[in-house]
């Protein structure tokens, strides 16, 4: 469904990504795992068209995204959940949900969003800035689901969340997966990645150094944790 080939990216002279390639097939949840600075966020920003200084080929259902500006990529089905959650302080919680256009047949009505995330209904009239970290994360994901995104790009959703919220998030992603949603998850948290993903790409210093399936990653957990510097 989503194919990335030969992706390289630069910040000025410094190369942040080197020949990155991976696939996300329909209904899969795959992770890009790597330590801080490995290039995970840059990869997602390249996919969304937010980082322009890049080379390589990104296709969604065979359609080359190179010529598409960010808003058309979103409309093509990419749902972006950025690393800082991207909640607007000048919009209410409900306006945060209503802002993106509704695309795709899998879009969620507001009602369903509120049933899945009751806390957002409670806070619908509050400013987005008034939410806790976990609520912001829920809002960011709910916003992408309401759009009807077909591929969710999640940038370290567990970061800064209390363990109980991480567990809730895991259930939420597994539910979404059961419903057939395709997801690309970027993580430093290997335990979390292991619990939800079908396949893992290990990213180090801007290149993919290994591809592991769900069983391999369990077998080699301690080695990988060392690699991630945890």
């Amino acid at each position, binding site marked *: 469904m989503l194919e990335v080939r030969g992706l390289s990216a630069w910040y000025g002279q410094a190369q942040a990504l080197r020949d990155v390639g991976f696939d996300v097939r329909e209904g899969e949840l795959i992770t890009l795992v790597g330590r801080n600075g490995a290039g995970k966020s840059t990869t997602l920003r390249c996919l969304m068209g937010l980082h322009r200084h890049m080379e390589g080929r990104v296709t969604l259902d065979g359609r080359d995204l190179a010529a598409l500006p960010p808003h058309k990529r979103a409309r093509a089905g990419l749902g972006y959940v950025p690393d800082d959650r991207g909640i607007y302080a000048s919009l209410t919680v409900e*306006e945060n949900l209503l802002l993106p256009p509704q695309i795709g047949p899998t879009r969620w009505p507001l009602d369903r969003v509120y049933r899945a995330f009751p806390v957002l209904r409670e806070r619908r009239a509050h400013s987005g800035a008034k939410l806790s970290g976990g609520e912001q994360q829920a809002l960011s994901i709910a916003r992408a689901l309401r759009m009807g995104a077909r591929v969710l790009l999640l940038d370290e959703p567990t970061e800064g969340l209390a363990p109980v919220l991480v567990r809730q998030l895991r259930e939420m992603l597994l539910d979404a997966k059961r419903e057939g949603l395709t997801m690309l998850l970027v993580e430093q948290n290997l335990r979390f990645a292991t619990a939800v993903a079908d396949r893992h790409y290990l990213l180090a210093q801007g290149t993919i150094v290994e591809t592991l399936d769900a069983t391999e990653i369990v077998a080699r957990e301690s080695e990988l944790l060392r690699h991630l510097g945890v």
Partner: protein
Amino acid sequence: MDLGYLSVLLFNGLVNGAFYALLSLGLAIIFGVMRVVNFAHGAFYMLGAFAAYLLLQQAGIPFWPALLIAPLAVGLGGAVCERLLLRRLYTLDPLYSFLLTFGLTIFIQDAMRLRFGIQGQPYPLPGELASSVSLGLVSYPAYRLFVIAFSLAVCVAVWYVIERTRLGMVVRAATERTELTRALGIDVDRWITGVFAFGIALAALAGVLAAPMRNVSPLMGSELIILTFAVVVIGGLGSIAGAVAAGFLAGLLASVGAIFDPAIENVIVFALMAVILLVRPAGLFGSQEAA
């Protein structure tokens, strides 16, 4: 000091504040969405006044229709400037767009000076408002009261659109996080021409309002624009409510300051800016984190 004199000063302050508010509102909207510091705002204000003047001289179209036609025409000119000129610079350092609007200002001012000379042209008060209204202690020119009320109404209407409509929601989102807003499926560029044209139309509207009070002259915007920048900073860059509140506040303070010495009006606006920058670097209504 007698109360009548004081109330006249306060009303004068509100009249000046009305102009600051309309101008800084346009500047704030343009800066918020586009990150363009539009130095040419004063020139478009002047064009608004000239448009009203020419409508009257050339076509016999009086004040009231001009109040609508002039902002539309000048706003359209703003849209053309955005499409033909500014649009090319968005990927560059914001300094370039500032320099462009600076050049545009000089071009517009000199073109008007060449055509109409430096001397101011008078513009008649609309007949309905030529009289004075008694306010108890003093009587005050009806036209000036109209300026206060009208610009307040415009500010409230703009505020309503921005806070309560879908259009405003997109403008707020694009103001806060332009790139993210794109990534959420919104074609921000499509809105930008409209936002710029709207900000320019507000400047032209202020120009039309100014015409019957001040002479219509090519340089009428150049002094005002510097003060307006100070007002925008006082209110908080990109803050809509801040621009309006700071506009009226600056107008009032400057006018009260004129009790002591009429020459210090402008000094007061800049002193207020300096104090605000020391105490609240992001301005009265700016988000303090962004500073």
